């Protein structure tokens, strides 16, 4: 256990270091963009102004000193000021993170349920299994943003009540909470659908493989020999024993899902982390990029840590060796 925690901390420190240096390796600097439109350089800023601004953000110091300074202020809970938004990074991320989480969590949960259900259907009907397997193989090869664009053209453009972009209808006041939540739901519907389409196959394949594996075990035959009903065998034997790889996959998919969400948010102009990351990169907003990376890597690492914990705990309490 202690080993796992140490490993977790080390991994985090390596990622943290990368987070600091990689944005600074990009060509250009934040100030060439601050007063320009879509990245075109203008000559409006004098050398003296530039120096003042660099000094203000602490970017004039040597990179090592900047790194140490960043660590110490981060440890104090200060994640700096976004150069582009002119607000504290915590504030910017705090505004956007919930929207990304809405998409991610909905995607993961519905894909998990859908994938496992499809695997169960396939278990009972051989023909359906073939059909689902082929479809899932095809879908899993298409990138999320492409599905997003297709959904935009084929659904959002055709169906009136499904909006093209955004998270809530702007400037609208809602009579009640349900009405607000419905608006949120209808806006998130297409991004989530696009994400579910590419995430479900992952869970389906994992669940199917795991269930088929369990099906080969003697205890399933033994259960049949005990005269248990098919339903009992399916849930208490096959699903119970086969679900753990799926749950592990659930937490390990957080990373892939986050990556997909960041892309899909840009397709649907959904104001989540993806949107600010895109802008952060565009304007070389080092501080903001660092913040977004930090929160994402924390999410991914924590998820894998949880997956590990579940597996370990299970093995320990049930005396399973491998």
């Amino acid at each position, binding site marked *: 256990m202690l080993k796992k925690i140490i490993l977790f901390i080390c991994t985090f420190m390596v990622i943290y270091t990368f987070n600091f240096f990689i944005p600074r390796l990009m060509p250009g600097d934040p100030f060439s963009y601050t007063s320009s439109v879509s990245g075109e350089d203008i000559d409006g800023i004098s050398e003296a102004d530039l120096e003042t601004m660099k000094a203000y953000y602490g970017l004039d110091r040597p990179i090592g000193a900047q790194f140490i300074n960043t660590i110490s202020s981060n440890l104090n809970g200060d994640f700096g000021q976004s150069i582009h938004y002119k607000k504290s990074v915590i504030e910017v991320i705090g505004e956007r993170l919930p929207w990304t989480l809405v998409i991610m969590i909905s995607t993961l949960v519905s894909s998990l349920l859908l994938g496992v259900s499809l695997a169960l259907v396939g278990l009972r009907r051989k023909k359906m299994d073939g059909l689902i397997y082929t479809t899932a193989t095809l879908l899993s090869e298409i990138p999320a943003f492409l599905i997003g664009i297709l959904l935009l053209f084929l659904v959002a453009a055709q169906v009136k009540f499904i909006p093209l972009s955004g998270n809530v209808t702007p400037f609208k006041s809602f009579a009640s909470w349900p009405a607000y939540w419905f608006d949120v739901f209808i806006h998130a519907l297409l991004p989530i659908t696009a994400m579910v389409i590419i995430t479900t196959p992952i869970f389906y394949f994992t669940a199917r493989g795991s269930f088929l594996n369990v099906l080969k*075990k*003697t*205890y399933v*035959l*033994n*259960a*049949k*020999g*005990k*005269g*248990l*009903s*098919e339903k*009992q065998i399916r849930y*208490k*034997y096959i699903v*119970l*024993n086969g679900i753990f790889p799926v749950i592990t996959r659930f937490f390990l998919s957080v990373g892939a899902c986050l990556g997909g969400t960041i892309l899909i948010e840009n397709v649907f102009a959904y104001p989540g982390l993806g949107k600010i990351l895109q802008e952060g990169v565009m304007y070389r907003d080092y501080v903001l990029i660092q913040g977004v990376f930090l929160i994402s890597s924390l999410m991914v690492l924590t998820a894998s840590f949880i997956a590990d914990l579940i597996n370990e705990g299970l093995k320990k*309490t*049930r*005396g*399973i*060796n491998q």
Partner: protein
Amino acid sequence: METLINVNALSVQYKEGFTLGPISFAMQPGECLSIVGESGCGKSTLAKAMVNLLDHNARVSGEVSLQGQSLLNLSPQKWEAIRMKRIALAFQNSSEVLNPLLSLGEQIKEILKKVFPKNSVKKRSEQLMEMVGLNPEVLTQFPGQLSGGMLQRYLIACSIALTPQLVILDEPTSSLDMHTKNEIIALIKDISRNYGVSFITITHDLGLARDISEKVMVLYKGTLLESGNTDEVLESPRHPYTRGLINASMDIQPYRDIWGIQHVCECDQPEMGCPFFRRCHQKLNSCREHKPALMIEKNDSSRRIACNRGGIVTLLEGYDLCKKYGSKAVLGNIDLQVSSGEIVSLVGQSGMGKTTLSHILGGFLACDQGTILFENEVADFKALHQQKKGLQMVFQDPETALNQNMSVYNCIAEPLTLQKSETPETLWLKVEQILTDVGLPSSLGFMNQKVKTLSGGQKQRVSIARALTMEPKLLIADEPTSMLDASSKANLIRLLKGLQNKHGFSMLFVTHDIACAMKISERIYLIKGDEGIQEVKDPTKILDYFKGEAKPSSHASYFQDTYHQPAV
């Protein structure tokens, strides 16, 4: 009494090629049957076929009926009502036989609640655990937390939970220690006796079969080779395969050396013929094409055997043999048989006529009275000595049995040279092979050495090699090790036994060494000169016969004058 289960021409065909059966048998209530055989012979397949648990790529045909109700084509719903309640199968213990995520209590509850009211389930499962010698606390544990032996007991408890009429146990004691094993056997026998429950035990452990069942079936490659009452089958097996299994089983043969049945390449195993063809040492050419049917034995209606030759054939028979030297009867009323592929020892004190009898049986000495049959015909010793597949002898003293001035090569090749059946090249190869077989160097230098330069042990090996060139069906070895030191003796005996196991010839082993006879032979005859001969069933009992005692009267009168009496 009504037949409990009737299996009629049950056969299973796998797409991959394995075929089981057709197998027929019937069981009465309270009867215990064992199905024995090596791994992969189809024991577990038979069990699963009986309870309809085979996977879809197995095609089952035939008929299984439980108290008159046909089982094979029942719907899954009807099967659910039969399983555990009337017929139960306890799987072979492995780490995967129980659901690793459900506690043992939970898993036995699944069975019990099918029949018993919910509030009694807990009590009943605790009773069951106590019955098989487990602490009821294990019910809260998970399969991964128990030892193999505990799981095995738990599985047996599960199988009898709903008081079925027939329980099939697949290797029920494979992971148990001796003590627990005996406890389980006693429990099963008790249940069977008191409640009339029938048990089918699937095992490769003949000792378990002996202890647990009245009847036994021997399965080989999906074919039933022999069946009968367990005691009788184990006491006098009629099929070479059964005999091979017994010879390989330590539980049945506590002091005998263990030898497995020769493994051979399965390459030209005939598809149509006898399944045991490749490993059988008494096969005929017709066995290649003709698969034997299971037939009732001539003299024993409870015994069935599937062998084209009607079981193990008798090779050498002697009836009423007598021999006199002058007026003194040396041997009288000698009756004995040697079956194909067995080692029979002839033991007795010196001067009781062991060597005389071996020379008579070997055709080197005529007897005054009696008949000797070889393969059911009056023995024509001249032909048997000169032809292959006949009878050869290894004498006590290689110094006199071998021409000391011959080279090793000539000495071994001589019988074949006389036969004129080999070309010089094949002869050379044969001698080379046989030298390797008897553990002598096959180099040119050694072959050209004179026999007289060899050591005693080497000479005896040459002697054996010479006999084996004729591929005899029967080898008579007259005290072949009496001239050797302990280590050479052990080596030579193991060599002989090994060669016998490999080539399958029968051996009549004449010795005064009862311990040696007990180690290597399947049957032992004790010879008592003119009083006749006696087959020894339990050799440990005749150890007393060989125990010498000093008779004080014999030496007292001679020594008392010369030696001082010891001071008292």
